[in-house]
């Protein structure tokens, strides 16, 4: 064979394969693999592609419901949203590339997840991004924030898909390993869904999109190892994105999908041509033969190894019905894209690759999928953190509020989302800054509510409860806008699974996720795992990020957090116990990350949430906010800022209870504002349903000078102007290098 290296134990090690794994490859092939085959095995058996550490545990997750059309295992999950419409969505990590090259890493993360969605026949309609950076004082953080945000914007904006929601947070555990989790939500018709199973023999295998280059080789393997000092030398493994080509690819694919020429289609993501061809053949119970000489190439002298492992972006592999090639080619040529028939499906169940007339790889497709190793890695479950942190009860409440509203995690992320086009497609009926974004289903009054959530400090204190909380918060955020939570995609970001403590976090996290999703009838339909998020032995906080999607029957009956009228009664639904453990308050004001995280009572979540949603759906509440980070007073302040309307609090708590009451992070709570004359009826209705509801005060307070203020219960008034200045100031100043 030409241009291949000899396979030595050293070469095997460089490919991240263990001795035992290499032995298994030999027994599956009945011989030594050659260099190309070794490369193929190394990517397909990488943690990133094979889920070898998590597969045994992921099986425990609930993935079914009557409305689930496609669960995990395809390019994306699919749910039925009625009237023949389906919603296709998935979230995926692009952590390692984004740390090495933030702009391209984040951009191609967005591009990759969009392809996962439109390869199933859906037009993407919303993009969300959950971002975690290191502490602001770390020398790299500013550069990473700037690069990631601009990379996401450049890709999503050019695609013309609105970026509508997400999170941006900071913690020192991400100093050497940021998280970039990109989610894409799309819409398709139920009778026009496309899958990746390449059923049948003798069908043409077609390559479309961009040409293949040397970028991204071994990206999947990089994502499956810890970072060390040399990791930045891996920059060549980061792919380079071209959203212009992807936009053309999207339109061309959807145009071809309007016909019935396609048997199967899959994007070339991680492990490129290797994973797309072998997975399509595997799912269809077929084999595939590929001739690499037919692959459109961007560079000269590409070897078979490089072509099989390239992660060049904006490429798709399709299996067409025989005889439909010319019709398909016409469409792709119209969009000025490459189109090449590179192979054929077979009934041999083998992946056979030819290059320059020689067979350079020949292996059973199942050896890359079902036969991939599955590890029951040893784990130890850490005892959750317990106790209640102490606090100074004499600290001034309003000053603490102002401070919290201006902290890196709690401040306005306007600087981020104003760089994203969130209004394109003219269906974004609830925009960034709310609990969940709402995107109207085009041409209807239905809406999709979308959110991403996780509270890593809770997950560190207790991975099980923390994972439950992430699900509960996503469920709550969808509920708070009036949506019925439908299904979940997850991005499970953890550290090194080969360390029993870290594996313990993974196992507990997955169990917590499963528990919450079952209790809330919120099945998991897609997602990915990103492990080895560790740099020089330092792991990240466990970060199982949840992407939730819900359905609004009528976007005209939607709630948002902004106060809308002066004189409305402010009511909290759900009881406040004053849980300060792991709260933002204790971290930001007392400077401690201590205590138990708030426990999540899933039955209570459901009961309170269903009650609030009914109020919204029946037109009794249009102003709702979930209570999460920062607690009750922060929620009230956020609602005031969003509406530009102040509030007066009138609650009869003891003064020494103010701090836990105002800043505790008890779960299953919502703040709502309703016209005063309706307040008693709402509270009575809640009590009748055995739901805790309490009147907290009124919207619309003003200072003597007429300025909107937040005031009451004997606390000195704080103007919204002061709160807003604190809330809006930090991020732009930080990015300008001023703080």
């Amino acid at each position: 064979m030409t241009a291949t290296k000899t396979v030595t134990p050293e070469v095997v090690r460089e490919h991240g394969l263990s001795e035992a794994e290499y032995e298994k490859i030999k027994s599956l092939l009945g011989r030594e693999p050659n260099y190309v085959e070794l490369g193929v095995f190394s990517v397909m058996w990488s943690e990133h592609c094979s889920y070898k550490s998590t597969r045994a545990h992921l099986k425990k997750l609930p993935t079914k419901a009557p409305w689930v059309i496609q669960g995990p295992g395809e390019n994306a999950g699919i749910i039925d949203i009625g009237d023949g419409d389906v919603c296709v969505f998935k979230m995926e990590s692009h952590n390692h590339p984004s740390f090495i090259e933030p702009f391209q890493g984040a951009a191609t993360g967005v591009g990759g997840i969009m392809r996962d969605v439109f390869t199933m026949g859906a037009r993407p309609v919303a993009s969300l991004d959950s971002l975690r950076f290191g502490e602001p004082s770390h020398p790299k953080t500013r550069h990473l924030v700037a690069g990631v945000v601009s990379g996401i914007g450049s890709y999503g904006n050019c695609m013309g898909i609105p970026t509508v929601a997400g999170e941006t947070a900071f913690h020192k555990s991400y100093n050497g390993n940021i998280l970039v989790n990109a989610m894409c939500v799309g819409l398709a018709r139920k009778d026009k869904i496309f899958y990746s199973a390449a059923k049948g023999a003798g069908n043409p295998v077609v390559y479309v999109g961009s040409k293949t280059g040397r970028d991204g080789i071994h990206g999947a393997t990089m994502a499956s190892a810890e970072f060390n000092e040399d990791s930045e030398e891996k920059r060549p493994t980061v792919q380079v994105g071209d959203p212009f080509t992807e936009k053309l690819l999207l339109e061309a694919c959807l145009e071809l999908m309007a016909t019935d020429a396609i048997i199967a289609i899959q994007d070339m993501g991680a492990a490129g041509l290797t994973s797309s061809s072998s997975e399509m053949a595997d799912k269809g119970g077929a084999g595939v033969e590929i001739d690499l000489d037919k692959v459109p190439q961007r560079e000269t002298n590409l070897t078979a190894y490089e072509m099989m492992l390239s992660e060049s972006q904006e490429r798709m592999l399709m299996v067409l019905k025989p005889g439909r090639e010319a019709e398909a080619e016409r469409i792709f040529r119209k969009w000025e894209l490459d189109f090449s028939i590179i192979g054929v499906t077979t009934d041999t169940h083998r992946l056979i690759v030819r290059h320059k007339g020689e067979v350079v790889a020949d292996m059973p497709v199942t050896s890359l999928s079902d036969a991939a190793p599955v590890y029951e890695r040893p784990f130890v479950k850490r005892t959750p953190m317990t106790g209640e942190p102490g606090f100074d009860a004499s600290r001034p409440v309003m000053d603490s509020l102002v401070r919290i509203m201006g902290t890196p995690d709690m401040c306005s992320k306007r600087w981020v989302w104003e760089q994203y086009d969130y209004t394109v497609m003219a269906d974004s009926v609830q925009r960034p800054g709310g609990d969940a974004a709402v995107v109207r289903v085009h041409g209807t009054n239905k809406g999709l509510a979308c959110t991403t959530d996780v509270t890593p400090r809770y997950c560190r204190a207790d991975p099980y409860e923390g994972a439950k909380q992430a699900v509960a918060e996503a469920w709550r955020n969808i509920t708070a806008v009036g949506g019925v939570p439908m299904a979940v995609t997850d991005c499970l970001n953890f550290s090194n699974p080969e360390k029993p403590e870290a594996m313990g976090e993974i196992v507990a996290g997955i169990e917590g996720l499963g528990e919450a999703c079952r209790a809330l009838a919120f099945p998991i339909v897609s997602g990915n795992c990103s492990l080895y998020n560790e740099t020089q032995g330092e792991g990240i906080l466990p970060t199982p990020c949840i992407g939730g999607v819900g359905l609004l029957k009528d976007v005209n009956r939607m709630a948002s957090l902004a106060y809308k009228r002066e004189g409305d009664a402010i009511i909290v639904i759900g009881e406040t116990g004053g849980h300060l453990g792991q709260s933002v308050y204790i971290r930001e004001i007392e400077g401690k990350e201590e205590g138990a995280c708030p426990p999540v009572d899933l039955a209570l979540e459901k009961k309170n949430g269903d009650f609030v949603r009914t109020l919204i759906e029946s037109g009794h509440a249009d102003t709702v906010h979930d209570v999460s980070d920062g607690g009750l007073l922060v929620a009230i302040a956020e609602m005031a800022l969003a509406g530009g309307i102040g509030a007066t609090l009138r609650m009869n708590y003891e003064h020494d209870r103010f701090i836990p009451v105002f800043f505790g992070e008890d779960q299953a709570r919502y703040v709502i504002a309703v016209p005063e004359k309706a307040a008693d009826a709402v509270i009575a209705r809640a009590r009748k349903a055995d739901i805790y509801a309490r009147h907290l005060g009124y919207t619309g307070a003003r200072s003597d000078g007429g300025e909107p203020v937040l005031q009451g219960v004997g606390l000195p008034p704080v103007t919204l102007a002061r709160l807003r200045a604190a809330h809006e100031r930090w991020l732009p100043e930080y990015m300008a290098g001023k703080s």
Partner: protein
Amino acid sequence: MKSAVVVFPASNCDRDAAVALEQITGTKPTMVWHGDAEVPKDVDLIVLPGGFSYGDYLRCGAMARFSRVMADVIAKSNEGRLVLGICNGFQVLTEAGLLPGALMRNANLKFVCRPVGLKVEETQNVFTRRYDAGQIVHFPVAHGEGNYVADEDTLDRLEGEGRVVFRYAPGDNPNGSMRDIAGILNEKRNVLGLMPHPERVCDPLLGGTDGKVLFEGLVEALS
């Protein structure tokens, strides 16, 4: 009123424009592929939509202006047919020489998406006749290259001839445009280019209907 929307490779507001046009004019616009030889003969209004034609490679709009259909767009505009360029469409119009000046990178070098206040400076034209002169309206902007630049003589002339139709409201200039210019007319007043997106504010659920007035004015003028 009959309208057409030109679709360049990576136009991405073509659908938004079509939806707004259909909603307001009651007739579906013709979608015209950039490689076509001409726009349908009976069309009253040609819209060049927003987006990233040719990926903004080289310069925004610099490649799109060489698209085959542009020769016909230019010919029809010379005959007095109405042409509306929104965002990337405005960039294409300046590159094609149908409007003076150029759109440079935003002064702060960042893409910006937000609603902006716009002062309607001119109502003596077919596009803004339904607005009140001096009225402040709100349209969203979403662009990385909307910083309007022209030489002083051109700017003086535009202002002197009443061709500055929209100006960013005081303090609301999102991109550093000279003299806060957001939208301008050609000499014959049948070609309008603007960076903000009227087609995205034709529905109360999307933050207002200030953009609808522009299209309603066109319908009225052409009926």
